[in-house]
């Protein structure tokens, strides 16, 4: 069987990709996708641990977190949509009215 550590390394890699994305991507939609990656990395962990510990609550948590990720995405896209309507672009680099 696949040892637990493999799952964890996988999730860490996915999480890091998400982190890298959130630091480098300028497009708002890609930022949201990066966030989803990170949440899913955590979900991998939860399911792996749930199975490993033979405890169901991890999987319940995963279900909840998937639902939350959906809600979060909804709000995120709404905000991006509104910004797009106002400024005709969603490059977060250029959204810097508020600073210093």
């Amino acid at each position, binding site marked *: 069987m696949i040892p637990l550590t493999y799952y964890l390394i996988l999730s860490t890699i996915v999480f890091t990709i998400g982190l890298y994305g*959130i630091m480098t991507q300028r497009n*708002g939609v890609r930022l949201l996708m990066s966030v989803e990656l990170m949440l899913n990395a955590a979900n991998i962990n939860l399911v792996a*641990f749930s199975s*490993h510990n033979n*405890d169901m609550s*991890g999987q319940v*948590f995963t279900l909840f977190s998937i639902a939350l990720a959906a*809600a979060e995405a909804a709000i995120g896209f709404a905000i991006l949509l509104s910004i797009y309507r106002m400024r005709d672009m969603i490059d977060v680099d250029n959204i810097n*009215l*508020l600073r210093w």
Partner: protein
Amino acid sequence: MANYMLLAPELVLTLVALAIMLAGLFFGPNNKNILGYVAGVGLFAALCLTIGGLTVNETLFYGTMTIDALSQFFKIVFISVSLLVTIASIKYTEGNKNADEFFTLLLFSTIGMMVVASANDLITLFVGFELASLSTYALAGFEKNNPKSMEAALKYFIIGSLSSALMLFGISFVYGMTGTTSIPGIAENAGALASSPIGLIAVVMLIAGFGFKMALVPFHMWAPDTYQGAPTVISALLAAGSKKMGFVAAFRVFVVALALLSPNWQTAFAILAVITMTLGNVVAISQTSVKRMLAYSSVAQAGYIAIAFAVMTPMALTGGVLYTLSHAFMKTGAFLVVAVVGYMVVSDNKNAKDIDHLDNFKGLAKRMPLTAFAMMVFVFALSGIPPTAGYMSKFILFSSTIESGLVWLAVIAILNSALSLYYYARIVKYMYFLPASGGKISEPKPYAVAIILALAGVLIIGIWPEPFVYWAMEAAKVLMV
């Protein structure tokens, strides 16, 4: 079976929120702000119900919720802040046809905070956290035709979701090592976590997740932008209410669940406290936007409260808990004053830019004496001048720090509060010593009521602190078991 009445405050708020949502359909855009009164009544009822259950100590629903002194304390903090914000918002939402959404979301975020305060399970905690976060993302962007408001919402949202991902990742490790998500369960099984390197990772990720809400440096960078861009009443909610949610979550998770890992997080909080208060105060000095200045001041205040985690004696926790209450009133009040000033500026000149600029505070004592006086009390309380709430909390917190031997930390904190006076006194100078640019204006009633209530809170806690200290002590006892 569980006593459902203990969840009555949350149930009442949910029902009121749903009722407002439905009622919104039947009101025209010009009188939707009347729904604010409904929200206010609901919050007041919830406040009474919470106070009624003050002495309860019970665990409900298979151990996922707990009602104890700590949860009740923080619930009262959250409800009070929301109540003040709601009262002020009755004026803010005047003529806005989306007032129903505004109040519904406001109540939802309050419910989220209350769920976090009661959470006895990481799943409950996380879901509550998200409820409060998601509603406030939308509220921060409530002025959707204002680019600044939308920008505030976007930044808040991106950093917020990054933090919740970090937090979830941290939680997953805690769950993996302990095999449970229940907070008492984690406390029992945390031995393996404490002795393995993954424990450190989990602790830091959780700190990042909660530190985002608390606005600890370096997780604070969204806060100044968001507080500045968001509608001022919402800034008050974020700075005074949702920030405290980070603290109560951290109290539950670190002090109760991860007590065995205390060497890790105590050091972490000591470092973060020092950086946070110093950076917050130093940067606040050079701000010209009052909202931004209050935002940095709020960052600095989070640094003071974080000392409670670093010291971790019963007295320090009492001080930290009391500080959250005092800070709730001081900060809400200060932001509401900024909101009133914004209202004043707009009524002077419809197209005014930079309505939160410090220059608008010139001669405020002449134009709105009540507001100016209240602001003076709030900023003096924030800087810790007696006899105000801020002074009492700081006194307890700092004495406990010295008493526990962390003299250097106390010295830095005291120097910082001296430094903070520099920018607080500047506001007073502008209000009292500079010429006014317009005539006298009377504050809109809702704002005035909210400010007076906040003022009363600050002064009562400052002048008659005894019951509040006892109460905070009771709350802190929950943590020390």
